[in-house]
């Protein structure tokens, strides 16, 4: 697991802006309900993420993980309740969307995409100064993509794309980092390198939340976990949260929620079938 340590060392050495430990943001979710078009996807969530905490957001498909992340980021307006951020102004949250939400066929170079991580310095119109370019090169080196500035993003593999997106997060130098399924369809070597980066951010005191599916990875690398099934099933130290009993409860709650929606009730006694169908069909 620790074979890739060198890259973590490189990361901390190339982040001069974070030399004094960054003050991580605190996230408070107060009676938060989020959803799309009046259909709530997560209900009445109450939770507090400590400054500097490293939390994995886990749960079955359709449990509202990505929705919750987008709610914290501010993309979705709460139906009830609120998200209270302390120490992270709007625009100073590093948000990594799911890879599928990014148009990788757009004619853009690696440096053009990664430089958007300096938006808080350049704004919509400002240019990239020499130190910005230097930081960009350093960030690419830190994710193992040194010298790829001029490559087209269309020519990158999924793993390389995720690496440069992590470089963008590095440049954002944000107190709160939100990662939506950063390791979906990414090979083991890349995953290990990027996990080391996350460790480095954690060590610097940033607050990090990542949506993940690999429970073994969560147990091994993430101190905290939040188990979601349209509401919080458990939140706390990973080992305790990811118990068999909690995971079974999460599945049962999601199945019950799916069965409660009117259009999947017509099958009658074949109880497992509608639940499975509905859960699979949610596809967050």
């Amino acid at each position, binding site marked *: 697991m620790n074979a890739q340590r060198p890259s973590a060392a490189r990361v901390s050495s190339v982040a001069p802006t974070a030399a004094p430990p960054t003050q991580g943001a605190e996230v408070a979710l107060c009676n938060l309900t989020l959803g799309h078009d009046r259909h709530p996807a997560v209900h009445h969530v109450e939770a507090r993420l400590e400054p500097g905490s490293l939390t994995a957001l886990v749960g079955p498909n359709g449990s509202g993980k990505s929705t919750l992340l987008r709610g914290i*980021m501010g993309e979705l307006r709460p139906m009830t309740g609120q998200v209270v951020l302390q120490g992270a102004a709007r625009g100073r949250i*590093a*948000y990594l*969307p799911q890879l599928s939400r990014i148009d990788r066929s*757009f*004619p853009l170079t690696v440096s053009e*995409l990664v430089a958007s991580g300096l*938006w808080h310095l350049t704004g*919509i119109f400002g240019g990239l100064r020499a130190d910005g370019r230097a930081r960009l090169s350093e960030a690419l080196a830190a994710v193992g993509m040194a010298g790829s500035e001029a490559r087209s993003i269309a020519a990158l593999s999924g793993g390389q794309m995720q690496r440069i997106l992590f470089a963008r997060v590095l440049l954002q130098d944000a107190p709160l980092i939100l990662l939506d399924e950063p390791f979906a369809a990414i090979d083991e070597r890349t995953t290990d390198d990027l996990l080391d980066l996350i460790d480095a951010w954690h060590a610097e005191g940033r607050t990090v939340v990542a949506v993940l599916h690999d429970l073994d990875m969560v147990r091994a690398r993430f101190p905290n976990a939040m188990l979601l099934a349209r509401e919080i099933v458990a939140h706390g130290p990973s080992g305790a949260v990811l118990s068999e009993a909690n995971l079974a409860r999460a599945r049962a709650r999601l199945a019950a929620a799916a069965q409660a929606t009117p259009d999947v009730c017509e099958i009658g006694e074949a109880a497992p079938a509608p639940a499975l169908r509905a859960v699979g069909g949610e596809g967050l």
Partner: protein
Amino acid sequence: MGALLHELFLQPFAEFGFMRRALVGVTAIALGSVPVGVFLMLRRMSLTGDAMAHAILPGAAVGFLVAGLSLPAMTIGGLVAGMMVAVAAGFVARSTLLLEDASLAAFYLISLALGVLIVSLRGSNVDLMHVLFGTVLALDNAALLLLASISTITLLALAFLYRAMVMECVDPAFLGSVSRSSAVAHYGFLLLAVLNLVGGFHALGTLMAVGMMILPAAAARFWATRLHTIIAVAIGIALASGYGGLLLSYHFDLPSGPAIILTTGLAYLASMVVGRVSSLRAHLFPPRHLAA
């Protein structure tokens, strides 16, 4: 030889003011419409552009019904109708995900029928032809001023919103997380598209205006791989096609709007066959050496 070349390529413009005006008009349309078209294409909104272009027709037709062939009335009518459809299309795209292309097709069929009906209520077939196919050879000062203003506004707005528009295409969720410019970029872009379609409508007609947006952009994709080079190549193709189309229409006595769009279409087909980037030629005869 020199005299022949002069007669073929320059004399029509030297001799006739309406040809010069047409060239100025086409140039203005190319400068404004083409960059908008490149973004439309890259956002996979070519069909939306088509729907907006058609939607302008009933709006302009209402203007025609009220005031005859009046530039301001038809412009305002077209703008209002185009914006309504642009917003409605966005709404439809969000709420009925699966039916987006069918909804857009429905929009523009209804708009076209309604527009033709309204124009026919008051005008003649000649008026209808004006509205459908434009009057690039009869652009007066007011029309030229309108076209030039629209392309000036477009270029200035694009210069200002460029970065936000690029991110809105590539990674809209990220843009939303770092900036509030997302909505401005989105609706500003739609407004620019409608403005340029209304401008193009006066010269090329409602059916052809969108051709000047989409065809040069699609052709340029076969030549360039960077966004700014795609835009530059597309503008070059549009200018050359505008000039070539006007010459063709002059020498062979063809209707000019269709001649211009057909020339652009030929440029597109030729680019598809022999272009540098993923063209037919590149597929059939892959370069043996490493292309830089």
